[in-house]
């Protein structure tokens, strides 16, 4: 089953980024490495739409028509309604977006991320209590959703309810102990309460998690100033000023390089990807392919579209096509270990062992802390019946890095191939214990035990 999410976050331009994502598949983050053109220094003729405006308007129309089509073709699904809501909110029509999201909630009230999106819209309007209500719904559905307590805390802060905000932030820190932002905010709340020890402790925790947390340094500067410890204060002020100067440079560079058209294209591509996934899920592969291809045409630099095409081709056993797309992804993101891993898998299926081996080597080099590369290389050697001892070593390494069922099963097979039946049984047992419902693991384990 596919779980759909709506994620909304603020941009300084005050628009929302709303994306639909599938959570059950482990997907690499796909940050486009785009060539952004600086804003024009040309004055357009009055009343005449420039090519950028025309393209943006055309894409918006296209997105809306697509979402309408989806609503007709998938009348029982809430996904097209959420998607239409996303499109409206992204284009600044939050009134209509909210109506659509409410409709989607009538079909399926347990959509935490729809409530999350609604909460952010309320926040942007200064409707703090309404935002809190939405985030409380989020937590009823998904008690450990990261960010919801922070959201409530921020709304409470705006309402002047600082003590209650502290409680929410303490909760967030239990859920997201690696969130520098919530530690920072907690520090800020304690600072407002003039509880300088706790403020200091939380600012320090924020810096420990995020050493470049500019705001936390400002907080520490303020705390030590209030504690009348000027030397310490100066030290943190110096760090703050250094980080702030870097932040401002980044901001300026980002501002100069910002391309609105790329943002518009990215949003439209996301709509097509979501639609493509809907068709993919329902087995309408041709439709899915057409939509995903349109997504890549709109935003050729977006690797997420390409990754979904890989998934489609993998599902429909079009290995050569999948391989071509992997190469495109690598061209866009040469440091993406998952793309190399996938490429290795496709080469392996085509029995192009040398190329598969090279791809897995590259995946391991790029992500030596991940077990997948070691495991798949071990499996390649097993399948090709070469370098069997090395395969066992690789599988052991994979288990060490990730003691998962799939890694234990790979180890079991390499042990077995190297004549180590006891090792094979032991590893298979681990795999079965980790995934008791997997019938293949059960069969292998039982077969190994019979041979004992």
């Amino acid at each position: 089953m596919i779980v759909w999410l709506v994620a909304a976050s603020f941009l300084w331009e005050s628009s929302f980024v709303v994306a639909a994502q599938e959570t059950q598949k482990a997907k690499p983050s796909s940050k486009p490495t785009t060539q952004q053109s600086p804003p024009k220094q040309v004055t357009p003729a009055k009343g005449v739409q420039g090519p950028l405006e025309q393209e943006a308007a055309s894409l918006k129309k296209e997105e809306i028509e697509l979402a309408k089509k989806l609503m007709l073709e998938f009348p029982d699904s809430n996904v097209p309604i959420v998607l239409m809501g996303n499109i409206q909110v992204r284009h600044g029509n939050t009134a209509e977006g909210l109506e659509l999201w409410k409709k989607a909630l009538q079909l399926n009230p347990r959509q935490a991320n729809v409530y999350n999106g609604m909460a952010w819209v309320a926040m942007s309007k200064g409707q703090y209590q309404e935002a809190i209500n939405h985030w409380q719904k989020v937590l009823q559905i998904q008690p450990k959703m990261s960010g919801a307590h922070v959201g409530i805390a921020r709304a409470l802060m705006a309402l002047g309810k600082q003590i209650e905000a502290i409680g929410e932030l303490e909760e967030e820190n239990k859920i997201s102990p690696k969130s520098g932002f919530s530690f920072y905010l907690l520090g800020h709340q304690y600072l407002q309460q003039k509880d300088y020890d706790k403020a200091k402790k939380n600012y320090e925790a924020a810096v420990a998690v995020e050493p470049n947390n500019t705001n936390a340094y400002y907080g520490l500067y303020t705390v030590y100033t209030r504690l009348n410890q000027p030397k310490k204060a100066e030290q943190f002020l110096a760090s703050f000023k250094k980080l702030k100067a870097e932040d401002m440079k980044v901001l300026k560079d980002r501002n100069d390089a910002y391309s609105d058209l790329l943002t518009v294209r990215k949003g439209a591509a996301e709509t097509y990807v979501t639609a493509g996934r809907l068709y993919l899920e329902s087995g309408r592969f041709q439709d899915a392919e057409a939509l995903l291809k349109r997504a890549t045409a709109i935003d050729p630099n977006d690797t997420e579209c390409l990754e979904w095409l890989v998934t489609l081709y993998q599902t429909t056993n079009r290995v050569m096509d999948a391989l071509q797309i992997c190469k495109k992804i690598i061209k866009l993101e040469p440091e993406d270990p998952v793309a190399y891993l996938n490429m290795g898998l496709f080469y392996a299926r085509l029995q192009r062992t040398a190329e598969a081996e090279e791809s897995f080597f590259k995946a391991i080099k790029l992500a030596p802390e991940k077990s997948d590369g070691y495991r798949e290389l071990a499996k390649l050697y097993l399948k090709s019946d070469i370098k069997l001892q090395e395969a066992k070593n690789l599988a052991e390494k994979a288990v060490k890095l990730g003691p998962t069922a799939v890694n234990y099963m790979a180890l079991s097979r390499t042990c077995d191939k190297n004549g180590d039946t006891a090792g094979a049984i032991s590893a298979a047992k681990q795999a079965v214990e980790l995934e008791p419902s997997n019938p293949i693991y059960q069969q292998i384990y039982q077969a190994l035990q019979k041979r004992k």
Partner: protein
Amino acid sequence: MQKLKTKNLKLKTNEVAIIALLVILPGVRAHGEIILTDVTKQTGITFVHTDGSSGNRFIMETVTAGLALFDYDNDGDIDIYFVNGAPLKGTPPSRDGPPKNALYRNDGGWKFTDVTEQAGVGDTGYGLGVAVGDYDNDGYQDIYLNNFGLNVLYHNNGDGTFTDVTKQAGVEDSPPHVGAGTCFFDMDKDGDLDLFVSHYLEFSYDKHVTTTTMGIPVYANPRFYKPVPNVLYRNNGDGTFTDVSLESGIGKHAGYGMGTVCADYDNDGDTDIFVANDVSENFLFKNDGKVKFEEVGVETGFAYDGQGDEQGSMGVDCGDYDNDGWLDFYVTSYQHQLATLYRNIEGDALEDVTLATGAGAGTLPHVTWGNSFVDFDNDGDRDIFVACGHLQDNVELYDDTTSYYAQNILLMNTGDGKFIDVSATSGDGMKVKLSSRGAGFDDLDNDGDVDVVILNSRREPTILRNDSPAKGHWLQVCLKGTKTNRDGVGARVKVTAGNLVLVDEVHSGRGYQSHYGSRLYFGLGSRTKVDRIEVRWIGGGVDVFENIAVDQLVTLTEGSSKMGR
């Protein structure tokens, strides 16, 4: 002698009860209703602001303009001067002639007459900021205009006319930059007013940037342009000024200057400079009293909000909201940022207390501009007025959580260090939805309460009469310097009435690119007598006045213990 009028108060039953309670419990503050009534149509004011736009979206169109409230003819009532934009490149000339700044004489009874032509103050430059001050101490207030293009200094001739003396005074402040707020202040305590001129950014038509949001054409943000340093002119005392930006330290700091106010935040007897900067840290130039300024924005907490984040700061004003004797500061800002209240911690630090006090209520969805601390109900604590309106005229096309036209915000001080948003219940004047920029606050009808004038981008202004029903007693103070500057700019006034101690300072140039409040306003609540007024003249001595009746405007002359009425 100042004209004084007292409004006929028709008390309703509940208002009588409130007043009775005040009589029984002296010192207890009452927080009544504030009512601001839109009287624009009856004033005869026909001024309509232009930003000079024609669809090209030049950045200065978004930030024009301020206004000035001052008594240009010394007849005892406050007149209004509106700053205007001008046609920019690509804008066809108007058949009615070029748009001009406009001076309206207050004829009393909420009637105003356009005297621009006869006064000779109809500058046709592209106006942004304005300050008023008697730079030559001749007893008549002069006007300085901070433009995109050459700035202008109008000398008040004292006969209802002005003369453009910019060139001979040496304060043209040559382009290419967009002007912003400006202030007169006596930086060196030598008895004459010096001049601070803020700059927004460097601009020339060939550097114009066009951009879009979600495919919709929008005004580019200031980061696309180069920030420029501000300028400081020393008054030579002979009608001319000398640029001392570099040697004073002011010229070392480039920022996106917007509103400015010059005030003595650390009570050390000299006047410091506050600059609200757009999209970057605000500046606080601390005056060492010897014409050297150190930028201490970060060190004091004024540069950023309490979290260390820069804001899209617009206007800045000061006032003692918590009656602790120290001037606090309020800075308006961009959409999705709360306007920020900085509490002055005894001159050591400016602490962001926005969230704790509720002083940012209602501001988050809006771009906010003119602002001030004003005791609208004369209950003894200062409320906050915030002018609102987005700078993108088409913002609703890509963001319906805000709007170009917006209602302004009124935050009532509850007397316990907190503010509540009373905009919705404060009269039809708060229901006006336009895109406001500069705002000024003065007693236009001399009835003892403070009224409001708002300049709205591309539209007519809004004139709000204070009709608050349950007002407390009041005192208005006008200063007359003899050895120090004539209008007492920079002088600190401390009013003691029973258990209430209020302070204020005379400022020239404040809020969002505007000028107002040459006369100081003190709300006294139920107190029926002022025990003491202490005036600390900038660069001069201290005068004390005792046992003063309430509900009057008094003129306090330097070196005298006598008051004029």
